[in-house]
């Protein structure tokens, strides 16, 4: 599973197509029957306020380590062929993608469940922090919305 945490803007659909074409298909020709993906994008509103921008801080080293542990758990729990996890950090504007999670498996059950697990585990365990830019100044996001 490929994991990238970077300041470079994401192009989720191009990245997914490229990874399937260049990595998944050559390694598992004819074996993958399901791909489940999640793309998270920055909104221009939160908690009733207009949000103009966002800064995403992370803990270099620990973030990648925790994402790797989450991926290991997913591969231990479900039958997966490959995965892709991309996460933006740094300055973002509304409508820019923040996160991409994708997994490939033989059957949909493993793909759906593992994709959901990875995303929810990332939200609760990967050290990232969002600071929103509002008209009135900036504020740190204190908690995530409920996923389940």
């Amino acid at each position, binding site marked *: 599973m490929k994991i990238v945490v970077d300041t470079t803007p994401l192009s989720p659909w191009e990245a997914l197509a490229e990874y399937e074409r260049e990595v998944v298909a050559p390694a598992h020709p004819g074996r993958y029957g399901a791909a489940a993906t999640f793309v998270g994008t920055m909104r221009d509103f939160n908690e009733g306020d207009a949000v103009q921008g966002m800064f995403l801080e992370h*803990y270099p080293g*620990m973030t990648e*380590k*925790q994402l790797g542990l989450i991926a290991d758990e997913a591969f231990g729990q479900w039958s997966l062929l490959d995965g892709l996890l991309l996460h933006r950090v740094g300055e973002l504007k509304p409508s820019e993608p923040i996160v991409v999670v994708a997994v490939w498996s033989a059957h949909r059950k493993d793909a759906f469940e593992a994709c959901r697990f990875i995303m929810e585990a990332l*939200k609760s*365990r990967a050290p990232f922090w969002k600071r929103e830019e509002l008209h009135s100044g900036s504020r740190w996001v204190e908690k*995530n919305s409920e996923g389940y």
Partner: protein
Amino acid sequence: MIGWCGSVRKPLIEGNSMTVKVKFFASLKEQMGCDGATVEIGEVATAADIWLQASGGKALPPNVLVAVNMEYTDQNHAVKSGDEVAFFPPVTGG
């Protein structure tokens, strides 16, 4: 830009000391006024002891998460010389 707090050394009466690297992130970094510190402390210390010394005696906020060497743990975890001890608020990525 928030910088390094520098070295925080507790005078030792006797015995050996150890050095650990402390890091703060996000809102906690802003509250502390720096992104980390080097702490010199006695050989037996928990993450909570490290916090007290690095923060100048502030109480550890109840929602703060603790990591030692980039793995989640709790404030009672015993630290070793050379460890990296991080304190940060609940995570909000994704």
